[in-house]
C-alpha cells in the first residue's frame, strides 16, 4: 500500500530561536519586562515580527523595544542590564542558526 498525502492542514506554534531546544519549556521571559519572548513588550499589541527580539553578544536576549528603551536612559551607560557589560548586538546570519529540529 502507498499513502499519498494530498493536503495537510497542520497546526504549529512559532517560537523565537533562542537556542533553547527544550520541547516542554514554559518559555523564557524578557529580563526587562518579564513577559515571555513570544508575547509582546508592554508597549506593543501584536507579538512576533511587530515586536521582535534583540540578541546581545553577551548571550542575553530581550524584546527589542524594551532594550532600546533601556539603552535610551542615561542610567544604562549602554550596558546590558543583566551583566553590565557593554551592549553589543549580535550579528545573526541564517547560516548561524543551528538546526534545532532533530
Amino acid at each position: 500500500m502507498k499513502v499519498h498525502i494530498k493536503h495537510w492542514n497542520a497546526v504549529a506554534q512559532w517560537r523565537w530561536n533562542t537556542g533553547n531546544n527544550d520541547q516542554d519549556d514554559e518559555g523564557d521571559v524578557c529580563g526587562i519586562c518579564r513577559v515571555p519572548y513570544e508575547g509582546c513588550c508592554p508597549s506593543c499589541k501584536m507579538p512576533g515580527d511587530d515586536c521582535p527580539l534583540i540578541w546581545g553578544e553577551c548571550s542575553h536576549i530581550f524584546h527589542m523595544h524594551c532594550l532600546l528603551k533601556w539603552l535610551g536612559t542615561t542610567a544604562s551607560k549602554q550596558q546590558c542590564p543583566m551583566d553590565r557589560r557593554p551592549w553589543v548586538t549580535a550579528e545573526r546570519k541564517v547560516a548561524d542558526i543551528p538546526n534545532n529540529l532533530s
Partner: protein
Amino acid sequence: MASSAVRAQVAAKWQESFARLNRTEPGIAGLMGFSEAWSLATTFLKPYDLNNPTPKPQYDMRQVGMAFDTINKCRRLPVMMEVFLEDLRKSQHLIAREVEVHMNLYESDSDPETVRRLIFRLVEWYNAWKPTAELGQTIISAYTLAFQTHLFSILPASFARGVKTLVAATLERTISQPSDQHDRALWQAFDALSLIERYETLIASVGYEYIEAHVLEECIGKWAEPMLASLRSWMIDKIVPWMLWPFARGASNADEAKTMMQGVGSRFDFHMHKTLCDLRTREIFDIIVDFPDSIGALQDLKECLQRVDQRAELVQSIRRSNKKRLLHPGADTKDILLSYVSTIKCLRIVDPPGVLLFKVADPIRRYLRDRPDTIRCIVASLVGDGESGDSLIDDNEPIQPLQQPEMENYADPDWTPEPIDAGPDFRANKTSDIISTIVSIYDSKDLFIKELQVLLAQRLLAIKDGNLDRERRNIEILKIRFGEPALQVCEVMLRDMTDSRRIDQHVQSQKASIVHPTIISRHFWPALETSGIVMPGQFKALQEQYAQDFSVFKPDKVLRWLPHLGRVHLELELEDRTVEADVPPLEAAFIELFSEKNTWTVDELISRVGSVSRSAALKALATWVDRRVLKEDSENLFRLLSVAEEPTPGAKNPAPKPAVGEDELPPVMSVQQQQAEQMKVYWKFIEGMLTNLGSLGLDRIQAMLKFAPGYDRTIEQLGGFMEAAKREGLVTVKDGMWKLGK
C-alpha cells in the same frame, strides 16, 4: 282608703280627659262622636286578608277623613297608631303563610319567576295595608318599618338566592334587549319593599359575576390585541343600562343619574380591571413565551396595573411559574436565556421603570449564574452561532458598548426618585440594552472574553477554506460591545490566521509543499490540549522540510508542531482500489504505519506514535475499520486489507461505531478545564496551609488564598473544588473545618 286629696286629683284627671274627648260638645255628644270615629278608623285601618273571598268593605272616604280628623282633634292619634300596629302584628301570619307557600314552591322548582310573583304579591299586601296618606308621613313610615322588619324576619335564606337569580335574569334581559321595559315594575316593587337597600351587595355581586364571566370568555388566551377598550365600551353599552335600575332609581335626569352612579360605577369598572388583571397575571408566563405576539395583553396589563394594585401578585406569579416551568434541570440554558430576554422585553412594556423586572429577574439571574454553560450559550449567540434559529440578539437593536451602572446624577433637573416599591438594592437601568443586561449576570466580563477566545479558537482551527470574513465581522461587533483592549487577544488570533496564509504562500512559492500549517502565537490562544504524538514516516519528513523552509523565510523563528491538530487529506493506493479520506492526524499516522507492514497490534502502534491514550487509538483505528481498509483479525490485532474483503458473517464483527463527526471541533480546552488546571496550582497552597495549621474553615482558606498571586476564585468555586478534593480522598471535612486526609 283614699284620701280626699287623691280623690280630688282623680276627679281632676277625669275631668280633663273628658273635656279632651268631649271637646266643647254639649253633654256627652262629643264623647259619642269620638267613639264612632274611633271604631270607624280602626276598622278602616285593620289589616285584612287578601285571600279572603269577600271583597273589602267600601268606605266613604269623606267619613273616614272626618273620623281621623276627630281623633286627631282629641289627640288620640298616637294611641290609634299603636292599636293599628298591634293589629298589624296580629295579621302578620297572613304574610308569613304567603311567603311560605311561595318559597316552598321556589325551593322545589327553583324558578326565579316564583320569586317575582312573591315579590309582586308582597307589594300587594303592603299597599293594601298601607294607611292613607292623610295620616301623615310619620304613621306611614312607622307602618313601613314595622311591615319590613317583620317581612325580613320571616324571609328564608333561600329568598336571597331567589333574588339573585331573579336579578341575574333581569341583567340577561337588559343586555339582550336594552330598550325592554319589562322589568320596570319589578324594580319598582323591589324599591317599594326596600329590597334594593337590603340586597345591594347581592345585586352588585350579580353584576360582578357577570362581568367576570364576560371578561374570561372574551379574553382567555387572546393576547394579540388590547382588550380593555372593547371591554369598556361593552360596559357602557350593556352593563350601565342595567345598573340604572337598581343604582340610579329616582333620578330625574341624566346628570343626576350620573352622580348617583359614580360610586358604584367605579366599583364595577375596578372589578372589570381586576378581573382582567388577575387573568393576565395567571397567564403571564405564556404571554412572555409568546412575546412579541402578545403585546396587546401586555398593554392591557400595564393599564390594569395602574388601576389595580396587583404588582406584587404579578411578581409572585412570574416567579412561581418560572420556578416551576423554567428554572429546572430539564430546561435548556438557551431556552432560559431566551425566556429571560422575553421577560425583559415584556416587563419593559408593563413597567418602564424596571422595578418589576428587577424583582423577577433576580432568581433567573441567580439560576443562570449557577449553570455551567450559560456563558458559552451567551457567547455563542453573541457571535451569531448560525445553527440555532432564534438569536438572543435582536438584529434591529443598535450595537453599542456595554454599559456600566452609572451613579445617579442628582443635578439632573429631570431626576426622579426610585419608584415607591423598589427594593433597597434596586438599580434603575433605564437605558441598558439586552446584551448589557445579560452580560451583567456575571460580575466581570473577563469570563466572557475567555469563553469567547475558546470559541473563536475552535472555529478558527475548524476553518478549511481560509475564509475569515465572518469571524472578523463578529470580532468587530464584539469590539464595539466589550471595548478594543478586551479583544486584543482575539485580534492576534485573527492575525495569526492571515499571517499563516501569507507565510504559507511565500514558503510554497519557494518550494511547493502539501503541508499548509496554521502558525499560531503561543500565549494568545487558549490552552490547546497537549498530546505527545509523533508523526511517523513521510509525515515527519514533511514537517521537517517545512520547518526548515520556514526558518529560511523567518530566520529568527522556529516552528513547533502541534501534530494532533489539523486534518489530513489522503489517498490510499491499495492493490485493487484507492481510498480517499479526510482524517485527523492520528488516523493518518496509523495508516502510514500500515504501509510499512500489514499487521500491527494496538500496543505496537501506540508505541510508534508516542503517547496516545488507548481509547483514542482504538477510535482512530475504528475509522479505518469502518472504511474497510483495516480489519481487526483478533482482539487488538489489525490487518491491512490490501484486497477488499466482504465482512465475513459470523466473524466477530465489531458493533457499528457511531460515525466519527467529520467536523469535530478541535480539542481546545474549555474554560472549565483551564480553571481546573489552574486550581491545581492553588492546591499546593491549600495543602501547605493545612499541613502547617491543621484544620481550617473555608472562609479562612479563601482569605489566605487571596494572598496568592492571580487568585480570583469566589468562595463558592473554592467550596466546589474542596468538595472535589474530598471525593478524591485528599481532604476530610468535619463541622465545616477542612483537614488533610490520611
